[in-house]
């Protein structure tokens, strides 16, 4: 399945764009998505953390992704 992924902060710089489309297996998990991203872009491994939001909520590694989910990369936040 194809999913759209939003990128913010340093993850946008790493990807060079604020949104990408990615091909994932049906029922892929957040953990699998992170593994794929880290494999394709080594810079992600250097981050203090990388969370994934699904439909604008923090998701755990075993959350299963669906085609129409709004997925976002959340590098370490630094508001305030």
């Amino acid at each position, binding site marked *: 399945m194809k999913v759209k992924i*939003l990128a913010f902060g340093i993850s946008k710089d790493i990807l060079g764009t604020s949104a990408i489309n990615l091909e994932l297996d049906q029922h892929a998990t957040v953990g699998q998505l992170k593994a794929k991203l880290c494999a394709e872009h080594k810079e992600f491994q250097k981050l203090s953390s990388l969370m994934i*939001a699904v439909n604008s909520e*923090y998701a755990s590694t075993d959350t299963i992704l669906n085609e129409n989910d709004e997925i976002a990369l959340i590098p*370490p936040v630094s508001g305030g």
Partner: protein
Amino acid sequence: MQDIKITDLPLNPQACLDFVKDDASGASNSFVGRVRNHTNSKTVVRLEFEAYEKMAIKEMKKIVDTAMKKWPISKIAFHHRTGNLSVGEIAVIICLSTPHRKEGFEACQYCIDTLKETVPIWKKEIFEDGEVWVSATP
């Protein structure tokens, strides 16, 4: 009553203080965070704030809801700025009223501490000789 906002326009502390005014709650506690002119020994030229706005608003609302459960807050304003900020400009305001002062200090501190942990907003510091996303790497 809650007033939660993310905006690329300048923030207004007086408006927040006016919002939280409540005749039954005499103590108003505020935190105002501004852009500092340095980080460690490096001179900051400006900051850039980026938000995943939809989610950031949801996370700010969770913080406010939790705070209102834990402390008797009557009114609270929670505003965050985005975009390009110069030194001295306000990045964040938390302002809340409680019947007594002790709970106000705790609630205000909880809100700003938790914002910095959970709300998807990112700060890029622009120095004279480069730039860095704050806290991104160890």
